[in-house]
């Protein structure tokens, strides 16, 4: 047991010595390896860094409208509107009778104090 430990210690000294004296890569080798690397970048068709390709206008519009889901929702809403125009539901006529003949005035929905505030602001 003691002998084995002693052998390990001895070997440890050898390993330590080897660790402290690693083979050193000389400048010529490093230059050759770097030359290989740069040649590989140019001759093996590595992609060169480049600017992002321009995004087509239709893709930009699509993105602005919320992608395919957004456009799908808009198309559905449009079709429902057309459908209601051609074939309104039965209850819709009764609802239309409730509206005044000359149309609705937005002022009717304005809060009562709205005009007072405007008067105060204008002095």
């Amino acid at each position: 047991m003691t002998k084995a430990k002693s052998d390990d210690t001895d070997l440890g000294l050898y390993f330590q010595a080897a660790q402290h004296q690693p083979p050193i890569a000389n400048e010529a080798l490093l230059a050759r390896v770097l030359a290989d690397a740069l040649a590989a970048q140019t001759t093996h068709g590595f992609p060169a860094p480049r600017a992002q390709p321009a995004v087509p206008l239709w893709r930009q519009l699509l993105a602005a409208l919320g992608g395919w889901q957004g456009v799908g929702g808009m198309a559905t809403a449009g079709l429902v509107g057309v459908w209601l125009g051609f074939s309104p539901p039965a209850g819709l006529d009764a609802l239309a009778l409730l509206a005044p003949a000359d149309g609705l005035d937005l002022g009717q929905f304005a809060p009562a104090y709205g005009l007072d505030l405007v008067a105060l602001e204008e002095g």
Partner: protein
Amino acid sequence: MQMPFDSLTELSDDALLALFANGDAGAARALTLRFTPRALAHAQRVLGDAAEAEDVAQEAMMRLWRVAPEWRSGEAQVSTWLYRVVANLCTDRLRKRRTVDIDSVPEPVDPRLSADASLQQQERAAALHEALLHLPDRQRQAVVLRHIEGLTNPQIATILGVGVEAVESLTARGKRALGRLLLGRRTALGLDDDQSEK
């Protein structure tokens, strides 16, 4: 995008390889400086021949350049992958040498020593390099990777394509063989004196 070299040296291996694959020359330089010494050190310790070791290191690095565009970040460690390539290239060269008898073993590599390395340390390192060349290939690779390069057993298992238990067995047998080979040199190297001083 070209980045300043100083900032590249702090990037991970994977990030550098990705930059290299995108044509960054600075990444090529950083990877060369980071990995060539490791590839060379292992090849030289296993082959015992400086010129052959340089060829192996250059070939291994060339394979790294070629694999860079397809490298999948996080799937493997670049260093482990490179050690595996070096190990295989060394095995191929050792097989070509066929039987390695005492006469065909190359002279131990004269390591370039740091100025403060003691003469005793130089002699120990030279004796170890010489003894290593007498071990079977797999034992030699396992011992070098474990006890000189400082890799873990699972890493060595990946590099050598064996299980962890096989690595433990290889290093144990390798160390026993080294112990026998170095036994006769202890007195000459003054190791007995070291022991008695403790």
